[in-house]
């Protein structure tokens, strides 16, 4: 299984802080598409993705046990 984390407006849209899902073998891009459909999240295209707390590309393949976080454009500082 994989843990997905949502932050900021993505969490508001998804209605969840985190969900468990089986995403192993999918690319980040495929997962984004799946999540957009399943949770009604609209703006994943403009979000970054982190796998196990490190930024990843849309081509990266997710492994069993990975934690995937969707990172909207940041606004700290």
């Amino acid at each position, binding site marked *: 299984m994989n843990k997905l984390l949502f*932050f900021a407006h993505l969490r508001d849209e998804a209605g969840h802080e985190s969900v468990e899902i089986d995403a192993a073998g999918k690319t980040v891009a495929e997962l984004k598409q799946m999540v957009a459909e399943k949770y009604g999240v609209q703006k994943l295209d403009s979000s970054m*993705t982190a796998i196990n707390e490190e930024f990843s590309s*849309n081509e990266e393949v997710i492994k069993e046990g990975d934690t995937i*976080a969707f990172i909207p454009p940041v606004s700290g500082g």
Partner: protein
Amino acid sequence: MNFEIAKDPINVQAVIDKVIQREAGAITTFIGTVREWTKGKKTVYLVYEAYEPMAVKKLEQIGTEIQERWSGAQVAITHRVGKLDITDIAVVIAVSTPHRNDAYEANRYAIERIKEIVPIWKKEHWEDGEEWIGNQLETVPYPTGKPEEKDFHE
């Protein structure tokens, strides 16, 4: 622990103390505060949220980048999360270096990088509404899904 996410008010001197070194001829501090007016809209308060373990890692990465670019630099950064009122301190960056020009440049680099790669978000609360900042305008596209490597431009 030079790089921290804090839930309580930040003690500025405590951040500065972390970069004190005998080799330094300068310490610069940047203190980011909550502004009341932005483009004609009055902010009542802000809420900051962080993906904390990753945010700490990314702050550490900024510290490493600075040490690679500015020889002899010491860096400490604390960013606050939670509800902040107008004039509250959101972030403190302290940089010490042997010479003052490097301390200024490196400190500027740190805040610009925070705004690029550290997973922290700000929610503005106005008198008539609220909004997560950094998303609605979609002015920051990420075509490859992650931030691009780019040089720092002053």
